[in-house]
Every structure is written in structure tokens, then in C-alpha cells.
């Protein structure tokens, strides 16, 4: 039965995720433009971009690249399906990592020097955020356990709680916000490929991707954004309809914050990113999870 829910969730997410993600990306560009004193493109610009990419001719360094990217897209959708059907948060995290791996391999298989550098950096990024993302899932499960006495990674469990998980997970949440900047590919941590005109890497991971493949990468990115913001919202859900509104408000605030950070910080070197993310994860993980165990 659970498998059925996941399947339905994946199908729903495959439709809803890109739509929402596209609008989010449009809002991002609009808000960014306003922050820079510009008018900015239309709200649907990301949609136009992808439609245009789909219309382009099909050219590739090799055919495997597209297969890898398509696989990455499928697993991103599955991860979203698992999350939004109330499935296991840890499994969702793992499937997202799998999708990230396929994306990286897609870049590597072209043997383009720029794409290889991008892929190396993307690998570093995964290594940087992975501990904190695991701590997020663990903190969530322990938060549920502290209220019910029953350890559960299930996303749906939050809807039965008397209070939101954030109350016992302030540090974990702060750590999540830190690595969220990496996951959303925002400056200062957009090392592997960037929407800005930093061009020392050409376009990093996506250098060799064009047309349909690049369109899929954009869609992956949209879906990931929706999913990651879903993680953020999850911390504010409890047994109340109002909690959903609160979660949405928090998600909006967090997204705005990320855009603000994106526009105000220059890209850092990988050393700073890795050390920063790991120190944050170490502190958040040890203190917050330690507190759960001790208390």
C-alpha cells in the first residue's frame, strides 16, 4: 500500500513539482532583478527558457550524458514522490543523493575539461552538505521520538504531532539553512555551476549539455528546490491546519533569505565551503542530537 502512495506521490510530484519549481525560479529572477534595481524578466521566463531548450536541435558529445541526466531526473521525481506522499525522510535524502551522483557522472562522461572541474566541485559540494542533511533527518526523527516515544523518519508523522519539530531542533534547522545555500546552488556556494555570469568554469557541470538535456537539468533544479523547501517547511508542521500556512510562510521567508544571500555574497573557495559546512554540521549535530540523547 505504501508503495502505491509513493507511486501516486511521484506522479503528482512529476506534474506539480516542475510547475511550482518553475514559478519559484521565476519569482527568484524577479526578486533578484528588483534587488539589483532592474525590472527583470517575466514571471514565466524559466518556462520559456525550458521550452526553447526543448525546441533546440539535438546535439551531444555522447549519448550517455542524456541517459544519465534523465536517470537523475527520474530519481529526483521519485525523491519528491517519497517526501510528498509522507514517506521516509531518510530514503528521500538517499534518493536525492543518487540523483546528484547521476548528474555528476553525466558531466564526467563527456570528458570535457570544464565539465570535469565542475563535476569535481559538485562532488565536493555533496561531501560538504551530506553530513548536515543526514543530521536534519536524524533531528527530525528524534524530534518525533521526543514527543511520541517512537522513532520515525516518516514525513507523515509530523501531521500527528502536538507541536512542530522545530521546537527541539533549532540548531539542526539553522544548520539546514546553511547547507540549503549549497543545495539551492546559491552564491557564495555555487561552485559547480552558477546562474550568474561567473565564467571561470564556463558553465561547470552543464558545460557540455544543450537542448533537451539542459532542459532536464533545469527541471531537476526546479524539482529539487521544491523538495528542499519542503524539508524546511516540514519542521513547522504539527497536528493543525494552520501549521501548513505557517510552514508556507516560513518557506517563503527562507527562500527570500536565500535570494538575499545570493545577491549579497561573492563566491567563496571550496575550502571555505567545506570547512564552513562541516563545522556547522558538527556543532549542530553534536549539540542538538546530543541534547536529545542526554535529555
Amino acid at each position, binding site marked *: 500500500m505504501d508503495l502505491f502512495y509513493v507511486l501516486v506521490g511521484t506522479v503528482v510530484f512529476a506534474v506539480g513539482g516542475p510547475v511550482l519549481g518553475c514559478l519559484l525560479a521565476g519569482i527568484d529572477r524577479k526578486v533578484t532583478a528588483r534587488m539589483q534595481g532592474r525590472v527583470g524578466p517575466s514571471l514565466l521566463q524559466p518556462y520559456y527558457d525550458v521550452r526553447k531548450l526543448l525546441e533546440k536541435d539535438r546535439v551531444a558529445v555522447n549519448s550517455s550524458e542524456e541517459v544519465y541526466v534523465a536517470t537523475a531526473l527520474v530519481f529526483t521525481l521519485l525523491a519528491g514522490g517519497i517526501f510528498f506522499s509522507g514517506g521516509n525522510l531518510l530514503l528521500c535524502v538517499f534518493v536525492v543523493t543518487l540523483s546528484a551522483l547521476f548528474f555528476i557522472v553525466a558531466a564526467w562522461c563527456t570528458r570535457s575539461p570544464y565539465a570535469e572541474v565542475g563535476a569535481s566541485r559538485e562532488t565536493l559540494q555533496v561531501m560538504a552538505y551530506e553530513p548536515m542533511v543526514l543530521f536534519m533527518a536524524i533531528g527530525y526523527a528524534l524530534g518525533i521520538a521526543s514527543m511520541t516515544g517512537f522513532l520515525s523518519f516518516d514525513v507523515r508523522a509530523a501531521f500527528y504531532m502536538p507541536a512542530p519539530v522545530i521546537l527541539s531542533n533549532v540548531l539542526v534547522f539553522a544548520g539546514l539553512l546553511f547547507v540549503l545555500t549549497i543545495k539551492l546552488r546559491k552564491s557564495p556556494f555555487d561552485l559547480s555551476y552558477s546562474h550568474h*555570469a561567473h565564467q571561470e568554469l*564556463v558553465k561547470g557541470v552543464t558545460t557540455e549539455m544543450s537542448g533537451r538535456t539542459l532542459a532536464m537539468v533545469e527541471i531537476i533544479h526546479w524539482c529539487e528546490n521544491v523538495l528542499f523547501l519542503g524539508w524546511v517547511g516540514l519542521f513547522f508542521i504539527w497536528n493543525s491546519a494552520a501549521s501548513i500556512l505557517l510552514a508556507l510562510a516560513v518557506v517563503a521567508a527562507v527562500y527570500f533569505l536565500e535570494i538575499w544571500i545570493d545577491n549579497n555574497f561573492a563566491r567563496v573557495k571550496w575550502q571555505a565551503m567545506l570547512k564552513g559546512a562541516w563545522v556547522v554540521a558538527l556543532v549542530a549535530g553534536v549539540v542538538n542530537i546530543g541534547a536529545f540523547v542526554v535529555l
Partner: protein
Amino acid sequence: MAFASKSPWVIHYDGSSCNGCDIEVLAALCPGYDVERFGIINTGNPKHADIFLVTGSVNEQNKAVIREIYDQMVEPKVVVACGICACTGGIFHDCYNVLGGVDSVIPVDVYAPGCAVCPENIIDAVVQGVAVLDEKSKALKKKRKEAAL
């Protein structure tokens, strides 16, 4: 409707020039003119770009580079020659090493004269280029449909 005109991504290459047009192109991309309004993004990657903005004239050194960047761009694609040097070779036209305008190497769709070309002209040229892009996109679609039949 073709979507090519809604999201023209550009790549910019500077041949042998005084860099005046070069700076004007960047000025057009900056907030003051905000070409992102039209969905224009400077990609710096031929594989992502739809419009090839060339400034400066072509010489023996950069001939192959322009050719290669053009070849690596994915159809449909449009070339805009920005500034008089890119159009004809301009003031450099009789230098020993200069071959002439961009059209001596690759087909050019839109010419934007000026020394240096002003941002308004660049924007106009890109908008004209976008119309060409739309046509090419439609032609490509038609071709693809025929191939499928």
C-alpha cells in the same frame, strides 16, 4: 509559437578591436539597460547560446576560434555583428592581418554598425536577431516533422 524569441541567450566574442564595442555590449547586459527583461542572458558557453554577438574584426588568429564557437552553437542560431569592425573590418580593414568583417568566416544575420556601437543599437540588433531566430526555429521544427513522417 516558437519559444526561441522568448529566451535568447547570447555568447559574446571579441575579435581584434579597440574594446570599445566590447564594453558597450557589457553595458547593455548591465542593470542600466536590463536586457534580462527580454529573457536575454549572457551564457559564455556556445552550447547554451542562441545568439552569437561578435565585436571587432576577424584576423588570421581568431578566424578559427570564431568558426569553432559558431560550429559548437546548437541550431537554431543567429549571428549579430556588433560595431563597424565586426561588420566590415572597420578602421582595421586594411591591416596586414585582418580578413575583414565577421561575414568573412561565418554567415551573419544582423549587422549593428557604430563606432562604438551604442547599447540601444545592440538591443535593436538582438531584437531583429530574435525574429530571425524564430524563423529558423520554425524551419527546424518543420524539418523535424518531415523527418518524422
